[in-house]
């Protein structure tokens, strides 16, 4: 393992703070980013020789600032840049700067950076692309691959996002507590969006690292809002869901349902962290949608086998979620618990009224088909599965429904009773 790997980890982790501070100095995202890139290049040369500095972020901010200032001067005077050792010789300055970078600046700088990414004028696709580029530091190529678009298309998307942000009014003063509260909600929503992009992808695709990035961003947000139960809830939810990653797809890349997953493949470390965060959140007695969703995920994580699942408690939690954040999707998910507790008839009665609002939603028809199958209504099940396939978002989803349909065909052909995967 080379030094470079360690330096890369330091550069990645310093990015939010460094780019945030440089943005505060220069009030321009492109300048801040270029300054950071230049500082990183110099770090990759200097740190293997001298060892990394005690405060990598402070070093990068100092160097980045000097490089950008010198570059601007050079633009005006057409002089060549001073040599590296003049810019990067920081032994004395470093201590002074590190002392000046206190916690309050860090918090606001990072928050400002995050908020820029989820600026209300940006559509979600641009928000995600911008956040992954400037906060997570993924390359344009990596982001393009994750979203199955060409590199230049992604480059354009990011450029468009940056110019929209440049035109919009970005406040550079420190946000007050009310603003901070509003912004956190937008940032949390964006992080959840990134996670879901990764979560819904089929196994082995380039999207799975998005879940890891979302969790890193959630932990970053948690460090900014140490006492916020909803941030604890969000982080816990992502950890508990991602803990199941290794079990969610089989060797052929097909979906494995929760009931059928090999639970020994679940990541116990992530589950432990998720449960610990829920414990902390609960002490605040301030219920919120992320905490409730995390609690539901926790009930699944705690069940050693599907039969051990506390469906009654899950049903109650979904009822709470329906109150906090009513949506047909929540009711649909609740119906799964209701099916376990009161049978498929009751569950079907719950979801049928949702049809007009969920007419474009893959999971609605998948669930409907599964319930009809359980009730022995094969023809209606087949028609529901047919609609599901038409709406499938990924090959894995389509393959999963096709498996139901194939089984249906086989069972109808043999006239036997259907053996159903729940």
């Amino acid at each position: 393992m080379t030094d470079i790997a360690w330096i890369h980890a330091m550069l990645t982790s310093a990015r939010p703070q460094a780019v945030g501070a440089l943005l505060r100095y220069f009030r321009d995202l492109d300048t801040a980013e270029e300054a950071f890139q230049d500082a990183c290049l110099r770090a990759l040369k200097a740190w293997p020789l001298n060892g990394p500095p005690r405060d990598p972020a402070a070093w990068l901010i100092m160097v980045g600032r000097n490089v950008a200032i010198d570059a601007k001067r050079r633009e005006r005077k057409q002089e060549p840049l001073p040599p590296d050792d003049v810019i990067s010789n920081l032994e004395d300055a470093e201590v002074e700067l590190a002392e000046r970078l206190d916690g309050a600046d860090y918090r606001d700088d990072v928050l400002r950076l995050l908020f820029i990414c989820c600026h209300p004028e940006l559509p979600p696709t641009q928000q995600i692309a911008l956040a992954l580029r400037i906060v997570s530091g993924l390359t344009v190529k990596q982001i393009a691959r994750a979203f199955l678009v060409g590199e230049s298309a992604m480059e354009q998307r990011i450029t468009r996002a940056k110019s929209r942000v440049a035109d919009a009014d970005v406040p550079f003063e420190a946000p007050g507590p009310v603003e901070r509260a509003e912004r956190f909600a937008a940032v949390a929503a964006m992080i959840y969006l990134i996670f879901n992009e990764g979560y819904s992808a089929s196994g082995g695709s380039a999207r799975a690292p998005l879940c890891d990035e979302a969790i890193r961003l959630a932990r970053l947000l948690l460090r900014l809002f140490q006492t916020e139960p909803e941030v604890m809830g969000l982080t816990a939810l992502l950890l508990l869901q991602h803990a199941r990653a290794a079990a969610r797809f089989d060797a052929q890349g097909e979906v494995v349902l929760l009931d059928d997953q090999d639970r020994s493949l679940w990541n116990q470390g992530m589950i432990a962290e998720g449960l610990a965060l829920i414990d902390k959140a609960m002490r605040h007695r301030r219920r919120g949608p992320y905490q409730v969703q995390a609690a539901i995920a926790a009930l699944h994580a705690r069940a050693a086998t599907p039969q051990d699942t506390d469906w009654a408690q899950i049903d109650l939690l979904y009822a709470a979620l329906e109150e906090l954040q009513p949506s047909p999707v929540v009711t649909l998910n609740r119906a799964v618990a209701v099916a376990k507790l009161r049978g498929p008839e009751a569950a079907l009665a719950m979801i049928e009224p949702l049809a007009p609002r969920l007419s474009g939603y893959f999971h609605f028809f998948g669930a409907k088909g599964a319930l009809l199958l359980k009730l022995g209504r094969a023809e209606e099940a087949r028609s529901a599965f047919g609609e599901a396939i038409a709406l499938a978002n990924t090959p894995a989803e389509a393959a999963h429904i096709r498996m139901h349909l194939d089984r249906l065909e086989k069972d109808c052909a043999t006239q036997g009773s259907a053996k159903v995967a729940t």
Partner: protein
Amino acid sequence: MLYAILCYNPEDVVSSWSKEQHATVMSDLAMVREKLTKERRLGPVARLLPTTAATTLRKGRENLVIDGPFAETKEQLLGFYIVECQSLDAAIETAKELARANPGSGSYEIRPVAQLHQSSL
């Protein structure tokens, strides 16, 4: 003599390790633990969850329970080893072995143990 080796590392750097880095460090540390076990020198070892999972009780007239670690520091306490060593120099050597397995960033605080009580776990 028993020494506690307290492991400090910037946890945002640790959480930025690639999966390969993480796997390599874990397996290299495991080898150090195996060696110490063979030498019958290894006591309790713990890896802690990140400080975002920590809660602190501040003692006082009224005990105050707050979210987060005891102190906001640049490097956080991430775990510890209790090791039997002949001398301080030997303990430092052991810390160096750990540092070779887990290079890059962070510090080890080496503090002699005054008393180790029997574990009931």
